[in-house]
């Protein structure tokens, strides 16, 4: 019996009528193939997203924690973010953002492939079915909201009226619940379809298919090709030699070939740094268990300087690797007996922004390559890159590398 047989007359030829869905491409096989791609792809995006959340070390509170109400949703972070390998956040976040963007056409095609279900009549057949439909709304709403907030955030389009961190984080937890639910309920169908073909009565297939204008293989190739096109036009934002190829990406413009001409997260003018305060009057203040100390830039340059090749890797997905020269953080800590501190509180001169202070872990304090950088690529930092001094922490998200550092407070030993 065809599903359209018991349709009320009023609904004939509306989207509730299966006969109004005529694409010959739809069917369990197409939906299962797209589902398999998303099962793997979205899992990677989800895991890298959770890791990125942990990479801020929110357990220290303050600016580290952009979702202080999270409760149990953040209680799983039982580790401090590692400093080794130094590229860990660069790879994590490049994967999260680039793969997330590349999956957009797959998500949209998947939604298209099951669109008849949205309008199916009757809309609800029982209590369990009603709850299942709610779970599908949660899945679709959270997936699209994660894509929309993520994609808008990396382009600085903050039209939502809530913080990106709040919206993306809570939507992610709804997604986790709905995604796992969907996988548990549908995985057997997906595997069966991919193994032994679509069921005899394929609910997703058109009852009255229209003439075929593109093969299923052709359509899948087009979706895959559009993913690769998105990827190709953005990849360069995370790979320095390919920068100029990232034509459609927020960090695909080459700034120049000078030592300070690499990508900037926030310019000094935007964040409210007064350039007159960065000159000869600038002092670095150290506070620790052994008292306090005040150093000017010449004092710092007279200390033992280290040069390290380390990445700046933004939560927005772009990254760049540069050669930084500065003083090891733990050498500064030693000046105020803070080498055994359990944490370090970093304060910037910047007036604005949600990240004018940061708390670093003891692992980050003691890491061999954590620097208070004074120079980059052999010359003084530019004002936009944090002159007179900025933090460089191996493996940490870009925003953790506080610019225009003014005060470092080393806490009590743990």
């Amino acid at each position: 019996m065809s599903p359209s047989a018991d349709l009320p007359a009023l609904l004939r030829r509306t989207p509730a009528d299966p006969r109004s869905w005529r694409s010959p491409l739809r069917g369990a096989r197409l939906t299962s193939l797209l589902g398999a791609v998303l099962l793997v792809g979205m899992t990677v995006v989800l895991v890298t997203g959770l890791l990125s959340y942990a990479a801020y070390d929110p357990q220290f509170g303050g600016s580290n924690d952009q979702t202080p109400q999270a409760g149990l949703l953040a209680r799983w972070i039982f580790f401090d973010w590692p400093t080794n390998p130094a590229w860990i956040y660069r790879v994590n976040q490049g994967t999260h953002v680039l793969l997330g963007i590349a999956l957009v056409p797959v998500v949209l095609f998947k939604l298209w492939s099951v669109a008849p279900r949205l309008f199916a009549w009757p809309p609800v057949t029982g209590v369990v079915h009603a709850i299942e439909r709610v779970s599908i709304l949660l899945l679709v709403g959270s997936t699209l909201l994660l894509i929309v907030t993520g994609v808008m955030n990396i382009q600085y389009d903050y039209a939502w009226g809530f913080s990106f961190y709040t919206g993306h984080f809570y939507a992610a937890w709804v997604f986790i619940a709905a995604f796992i639910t969907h996988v548990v309920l549908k995985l057997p169908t997906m595997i069966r379809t991919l193994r032994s073909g679509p069921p005899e009565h394929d609910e997703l297939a058109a009852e009255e298919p229209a003439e075929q204008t593109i093969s299923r293989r052709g359509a899948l190739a087009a979706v895959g090709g559009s993913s690769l096109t998105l990827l190709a036009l953005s990849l360069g934002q995370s790979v320095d030699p390919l920068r100029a190829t990232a034509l459609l990406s927020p960090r695909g413009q080459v700034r120049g070939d000078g030592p300070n001409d690499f990508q900037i997260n926030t310019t000094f003018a935007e964040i409210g740094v007064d350039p007159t305060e960065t000159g000869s009057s600038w002092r670095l203040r150290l506070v620790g268990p052994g008292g306090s100390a005040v150093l000017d830039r010449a004092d710092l340059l007279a200390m033992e300087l280290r040069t390290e090749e380390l990445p700046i890797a933004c939560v927005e997905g772009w990254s760049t690797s540069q050669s930084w020269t500065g003083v090891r953080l733990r050498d500064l800590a030693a000046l105020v007996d803070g080498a055994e501190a359990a944490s370090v509180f970093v304060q910037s001169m910047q007036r604005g922004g949600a990240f004018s202070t940061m708390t670093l872990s003891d692992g980050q304090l003691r890491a061999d390559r954590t620097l208070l950088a004074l120079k980059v690529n052999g010359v003084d930092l530019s004002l936009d890159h944090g002159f007179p001094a900025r933090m460089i922490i191996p493996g940490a998200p870009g925003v953790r590398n506080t610019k225009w550092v003014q005060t470092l407070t080393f806490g009590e030993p743990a």
Partner: protein
Amino acid sequence: MRRRLPVLLACLAVTAYTASRLLDELPVLTRIALWFVAVAVVWDLVLGPLLALADRGLRPLHQVRLRGVAALNYVRVPAAFSALLLLVWAPLVLERSASTFAGKSGLDPSVYLGRWVGVTAALLLLSAAAYGVALLRAGRAGR
């Protein structure tokens, strides 16, 4: 399937807990909930159907055939790629946040419209070339 109900209830429970964390900030929760529903509605009931309609508008091209090769997909595929690129990069292309973008990155916000047009032109050219190759093949096969 017997395990359906417990799994669905667990899903609702996690969602309820997640939402409850924001009860102290009701305006934020409300806005997130509105966006949550709005993105699903806009895609399912507005943008998706509009794109399907646009695709149907191209359908007559299926009858436009040179040497038996339909022109449809050689227009449809680059057009879909271009629409997707615009959908993803609309804030940059339409300069919705030009001053914030310039302030944050120090880069020129005005380049993206031209880049999107350029990429679209390149996609159409590539597709035209592919159509040319298909025509040559069809001609050779017909001889």
